């Protein structure tokens, strides 16, 4: 398995598409970090240093979006691009039957491919976060505290799990669908569906099931709850909820408040202290578990389908 793994990793790093993807991600990330740091600098100069300033590099939006939003939106594409032709390219090139006639277990092929993808993603994220941290340190002149560094590390793990889910999804499609083009389109279609339509759809369904009534707080609450529950089907929502809590210690819950009276708001801001890292992790643990579980399910299905597929069709 290690042999296949090594070759797959080499393939990923040598491939043109990976280079293009990496360039794109790095360019956007650098640009965003740069504008954000410039904004932050002008805003905070003269004042006292805000706690967790460093994390704001990643969470406040620059020109259009913040870095975490960018990854939430763009991450799936990375996973899809790395996985959509994993198996069916080998099939159409005739190398799959050759691979299978060598003394390797059949699952070694799919394990190695999945692992190589995850490792590539991990390397990509790690270097990206380190690069941006370095840039941020120079640009705003603030060194991250241990707490912040730990939060960044957790953020990275969640991101890897998130992109890993999409990688698993793409590999699954590459096993089920014979044609490379169809597999790519199917993955992209699913991505767009969960990124955009689940968001619209959850609002629509919630309005039908429990119409929001301005004068009836219970109905409004119910409406919001239903919308949130449906939204959680989408890994994109899971990811953005989880990361925004990790990256912003002042967020104590992933839920948004529907109705907050003026007095409540005052009392909330009086006790507005940052959560400790452990508490933040506790808040997002269910989200993280779901993400990892989704990835595991994707992989398990791919594994089963691949192991049971008749070789005749290979």
């Amino acid at each position: 398995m290690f042999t296949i793994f090594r070759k797959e990793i080499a393939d990923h790093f040598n491939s043109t598409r990976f280079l293009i993807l990496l360039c794109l991600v790095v360019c956007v990330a650098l640009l965003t970090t740069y504008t954000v740091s410039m904004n932050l600098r002008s805003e905070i100069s003269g004042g006292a240093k805000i706690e967790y300033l460093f994390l704001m590099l990643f969470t406040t939006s620059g020109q259009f979006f913040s870095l975490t939003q960018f990854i939430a939106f763009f991450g799936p594409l990375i996973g899809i691009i790395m996985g959509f032709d994993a198996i069916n390219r080998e099939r159409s090139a005739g190398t799959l039957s050759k691979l299978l006639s060598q003394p390797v277990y059949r699952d070694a092929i799919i394990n190695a491919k999945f692992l190589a993808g995850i490792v590539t993603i991990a390397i990509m994220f790690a270097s990206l976060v380190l690069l941006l941290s370095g840039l941020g340190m120079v640009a705003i002149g603030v060194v991250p505290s241990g707490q912040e560094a730990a939060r960044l590390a957790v953020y990275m793990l969640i991101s890897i799990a998130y992109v890993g889910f999409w990688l698993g999804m793409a590999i699954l499609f590459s096993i089920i669908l014979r044609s490379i083009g169809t597999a790519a389109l199917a993955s992209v279609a699913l991505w767009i569906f969960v990124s955009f339509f689940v968001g619209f759809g959850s609002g629509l369904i919630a309005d039908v099931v429990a119409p929001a009534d301005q004068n009836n707080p219970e109905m409004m609450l119910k409406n919001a709850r239903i919308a949130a529950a449906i939204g959680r089907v989408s890994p994109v929502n899971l990811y953005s909820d989880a990361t925004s809590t990790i990256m912003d210690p002042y967020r104590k819950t992933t839920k948004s408040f529907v109705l907050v009276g003026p007095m409540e708001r005052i009392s909330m801001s009086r006790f507005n202290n940052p959560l400790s890292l452990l508490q933040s992790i506790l808040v997002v643990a269910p989200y993280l578990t779901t993400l990892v579980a989704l990835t595991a399910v994707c992989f398990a299905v791919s594994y089963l389908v691949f192991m049971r597929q008749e070789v005749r069709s290979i």
Partner: protein
Amino acid sequence: MAAVIETHELTKIYGRQKAVDHLTFEVRQGEIFGFLGPNGAGKTTTILMLLGLSEPTSGSSHVLGFDPVREPLKVKERVGFMPENVGFYDDMTGRANLQYVARLNSLPDSVSKKRIDDALEKVKLANEANKPVGAYSRGMRQRLGIAEVLIKNPKLIILDEPTMGLDPEGINSTLDLIKLLSVEEGISILLCSHLLHQTQKVCDRVGILNQGSLVAKGTIEELARDGIQLAAPAAGQAEGTTLSLEDIYMRYFQEE
């Protein structure tokens, strides 16, 4: 002579279709066995079962003494298989492709280097070894496929349509190479093809497969004799003339 492949009542059913129907045959040590039949006769299915890539519905087989269902890895370690339309990683060089296969067979690099050089020499690709496979002609790919099979020092080689899509010259050199491997290295070879006149030049024995069952097997002379007994000689063909495999083949399928 010991048998390297033995099958007993091997059967594979896909849905309602019998791809291979109670197939019993053997390939002896050191011979070239031609496994012949029209497209869809069940040749590839049989090979897949022999390699443990597909499970037989019933029946059993032994390859080099191992049961492919129980010990597929042991079979795959010892048997070289070249699939129909052999595939390579086009962006890698010929040598790198062979190196990859050697690593998959867990050969240490020190051993594989020599074997790769030898194999490339044998198939006359030593000068082209460092070009990407994408630039290879069809004949060169086919020869690289044979080199790849040789990397693991197999006792048995299974070739699925090795001459398909080649020009006459390519066909001849491929067949010569196959003969050479059998004569000089003593490797047993199972050669699958639907092109009869080519295979009769190199095969020691042949088996003719139709709709999943073996309709005839033996040396070409034996088959020619039986063929005459089976059917009345065709008009204009004198009794006692040696038939080519083509004639035998046509007879069997005319009877259907």
